[in-house]
């Protein structure tokens, strides 16, 4: 009696193989296709105040917003890029001017800005970041904190030409 090629065992084996190789080849794919640009997140631009000044730190500090800025394609770090940051903190609502500030990326394309502790607002402890300087396409991010108790939040940008 001839057995069909498609039975439970072959389907499961083939399926697992595709899943495994698919997962394993993810980095290879990224190398070939290049690093893709970060899309703007939903709600990312809420309570944005364009033109936040570059500051040493926002308010009294105690919390660190960190991240990287790279360019799409080769993933090269982008130095000197202005990143604007705001959040609901212990020192003010998102809309308040004193809750906003900006910083520049260093030679390695990383940035780090001290700010007051972010506290949960509108149901989630979250921050807002913007790249909105013109040379690349504008991106708004809205990363979530893993817990309201953590004192740092990271957000990475991959920018593509405007």
């Amino acid at each position, binding site marked *: 009696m001839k057995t069909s090629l498609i039975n439970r065992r072959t389907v499961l084996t083939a399926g697992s193989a595709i899943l495994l190789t698919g997962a394993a080849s993810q980095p290879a794919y990224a190398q070939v296709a290049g690093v893709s640009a970060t899309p703007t997140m*939903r709600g990312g631009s809420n309570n944005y105040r364009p033109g936040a000044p570059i500051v040493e730190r926002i308010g009294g500090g105690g919390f660190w917003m960190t991240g990287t800025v790279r360019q799409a394609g080769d993933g090269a770090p982008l130095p000197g890029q202005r990143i604007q940051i705001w959040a*609901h903190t212990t020192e003010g609502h998102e809309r308040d001017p004193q809750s906003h500030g900006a910083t520049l990326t260093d030679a390695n394309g990383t940035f780090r800005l001290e700010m007051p502790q972010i506290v949960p607002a*509108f*149901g989630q402890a979250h921050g807002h970041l913007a790249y909105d300087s013109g040379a690349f396409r504008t991106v708004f991010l809205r990363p979530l904190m893993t817990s*309201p108790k953590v004192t740092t939040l990271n957000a990475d940008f991959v920018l593509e030409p405007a």
Partner: protein
Amino acid sequence: MRSALIWGLVAFVIGAPIVVAANSPLLQWREPLYIAAGLAGVVGMATMLLQPLLVVGALPGPSLTTSRRLHRYGGLVLVLAVALHVIGLWVTSPPDVIDVLLLRSPTPFAIWGLLAMWAIFGAGVLALLRPRMPLRIWRWGHTGLVLLAAVGTVVHAVQIVGTMGSVTKVMLSIALVAALFLAIARRKVWMMGLRPRRN
């Protein structure tokens, strides 16, 4: 004794989340309107525990007539609480609330809240139209909307990192769903139209 126990239990399940929310450390970083908006949400949710108990007269003391009149006032309180909740949040952070109303919010709990809001408003509108409505449509419609409101509210509340304490939040959630099912079971809403009306 039994009635004191029931009232004590209800008062605790309603009072505890309100007291915890009113003492949340988050409040020190919020403006008065934002605080009021949040508390209005908690008060509204607490009302949703009382409503089914009132409509079937499960709370000892008041007559069924009084109890059902209180249910109508409870509905009014609930609608006003939801309105204050949404308007207060809107004034505090307009883009966040507009995102929710346009179904493009990044926060899933907000969409559940929106579902609950429309279901509560719908249940209220049905109550106003009730005199002109076939009994079966009224009963099924009001019950169905209230069920949606309860599910939406519970999912909304449980997912939120806010002023409500997590223990009291779950306690109130379980209680209000249980009370609703008790009322539906007592009234045998699913039998509506299959038997003559009693009471």
